[in-house]
């Protein structure tokens, strides 16, 4: 299955930048030909343009990002993205934000779906950050969690069967 593993988020915001950091780590590894790694933090509209021209199109996306889901940090969870479009005004508001430079993982997925370039199967690995200040370094807790994040991304990219992957929270670190 042609798969894209991607990170998304702002740079230099400590643990909030886990998406781009994880993508950079994964890029250093060897991957089968049908799995690509990218950092999708360059703006949802531009991502739409690029994915629209990618041939063959991706069938699966594993997205890594930081988000507050109410867990004790550091923690991570992974979910199958339900791909339900909000109403048009909401989508439009997200397009406007994207055009204005806002980088946001939900905006990304909703805009990709709106313009028909969202892979049919999407897993989102969300990470509860410890430290969200300006800074290039991860917190020590997040550094310990990073190998697990990368492992889950590999598993979801190579082996996932949506029907057996339950939404999961982990704070093994």
């Amino acid at each position: 299955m042609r798969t894209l593993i991607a990170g998304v988020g702002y740079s230099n915001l400590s643990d909030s930048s886990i998406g781009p950091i994880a993508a950079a780590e994964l890029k250093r590894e060897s991957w089968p030909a049908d799995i690509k790694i990218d950092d999708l933090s360059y703006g949802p509209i531009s991502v739409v343009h690029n994915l629209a021209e990618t041939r063959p199109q991706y069938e699966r996306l594993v997205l890594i990002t930081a988000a507050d889901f109410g867990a004790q940090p550091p923690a991570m969870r992974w979910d199958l993205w339900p791909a339900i479009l909000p109403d048009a005004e909401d989508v439009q508001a997200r397009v406007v934000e994207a055009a204005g430079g806002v980088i946001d993982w939900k905006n990304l997925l909703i805009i990709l779906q709106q313009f028909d370039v969202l892979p049919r199967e999407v897993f989102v690995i969300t990470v509860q950050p410890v430290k969200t200040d300006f800074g290039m370094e991860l917190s020590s807790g997040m550094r310990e969690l990073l190998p697990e994040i990368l492992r889950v991304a590999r598993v979801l990219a190579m082996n996932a069967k949506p029907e057996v992957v339950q939404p999961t929270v982990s704070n093994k670190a």
Partner: protein
Amino acid sequence: MCFKNLPIEFDESGKMTLRGDGTAFDLRRQPQTIGPKPLSDEQIKSLLAKNGYIRDVDFDPVTRVAGALAFHAVADLKERKVLTTNSMATLFRGYEVIMLGRDPRDAIFITSRACGVCGGVHSVTSCLALEMAMGLVPPPLGVIVRNLLLEIEFNYDHPLHLFLLAGPDYSRAIVEQTNPEVWEKAKSYHAPGRDWHGYETIGAIMEDLNLLTGKLYLEALHMTRVAREAYVVLGGKYPHPQTIVPGGVSTTISLQTFNEFYLRLQKFFDYSKKCIAIWDDLTEFFYTANPRYKEVGTRPKNLVDCGIWDDPESYDSTYVNCDRWGERRWSTPGAIVDGELVTTRLTAINAGIEEFVDRSYYETWNGQRFPRDPSGNPLSPFHPWNKETKPKPTGQNWKEKYSWSCTPRWDRQTTEAGAYARLWIIAAAKKLRPNPFLEPTGTSLKIKLPKAARPEREVEWKIPETWNAFERNRGRAYCIALNAMAAMNDWLKGLDLLKQGKTEVSTPFKIPTKGTQIGAGFWGAGRGWLTHHLVLEKGHVANYQIVTPSTINASPRDPWDNPGAYEEAVLNTPLLETFDDPADFKGVDILRTIRSFDPCMPCTTHIYAGKRVISREVNTCACGADDEHEHSHAVATAR
């Protein structure tokens, strides 16, 4: 004499002198202005008591604009008019504070982050300011590449606004809902520009302006890609290019990159023909459907612009020569007051700008470090070179402070910035260098668009009789052609330089480590006016002030209680929307007015960072700030 209000006069040689003594700039004298006056609080209270149709109309946030803008109005829904208005920038920008004490080269990359839409303009403007401070002159090809980058960047910007942000206001989905009688007329109304845009009726255009699904919306989304590709072919990255440096650019330019750029540029020849036909037809249709649409968003014809796109043979970065090199730009600097062009001199434009904070969440500053500019012309204590940024958040109160935007004024009058100011000033000034594509006539600007897939077309933008929301959008469509043909002029000049072997694109420089230097970048964003004023002390930034177009347009009232440009335009807007029950009122005419300015608030406001980082959403409350007690001015949430 270009100043009516500032105490500055001109001698026979054109040199500016101060009229009166050192207190000449004080604020006690009421300036002569021509804008509307909002009703006083007492008048509104009196009306409220006897008229059940008066109500607060709050848009918070104003949607389909970039960044955080809220707007408060009091409207009489029976008389269908707006009584009072307040425009609120709801976030603190802070770049002026961030820049203090830094290495000046940081300005290029830090100030660029002021906006993700105008992703290249701030880096160039900061470089211009540094070049002036250091006396640094880029080689001709460096100037040309910088021009090309900004010309094509604006053709990312304008389609985005015309079809993704403002366009849906004129779509079937909106018009059918807010003015069904206009939609009925549009369905069968013949579109005169059919040969250029392909639509038989205005209704068909409106159908394709529908958000997310309309063909014009989707086509504009595609064209933003074409423009961005052209930008990165030359500039390497967009937004926030890493190749803009004082003294030119750090990118490698070859015939190949020029050709790749042209492949994208020429797509705007035909696209601009189409956009102009669409916005000409829409504008004229609305005027026919109801002549009062000419009043929507109207305000005095006061516009300012610094000009943009330098002549590589004239630009020497110095302040003392800026009048000469400014007037050689493809877009002439200028100030229009009450419809008349009063100056094209950058020194006068610079002397005329002041920033006030009386209605903003800032403290005033004392002192006037620079009473004169580098040419000896007088400067106001409120001039950006003298301004200090001292944030002081307080409760929101319409009678006092209610915005994070400052109040820039030119000659103490409410003016407006916009891409269309370029058209107007070029047309009226008639100062363009000879060229095959752009011909100002004094009352219009003729633009010759070359043959591409469609035949050659000459379009003519005429200085409008009335200035309103529709003319702003129409002007912006013509600006797509202006940008493309200014780029064509620069592209041809660049090829000529390459042919001559003049391939240098940058001049080496060293940051001065001693003394005091000052500089200003006089440039433009997609939305018009952009200036960066800096002061260097011993190699570090001692002051940095940015005036953006949306700061000018979104400004709150000034020290004399005159409204800002958005506020004025909405005050003048008749409520033409069809509704019987006030509960059904959508405010489309107000929204069309605000959006016609192409508000882009990230550069006006940005983040509030106390002990934490706000990386996402901010909500504010625009309601009830009339109350005497303090209100929370902003509720920020990070997620």
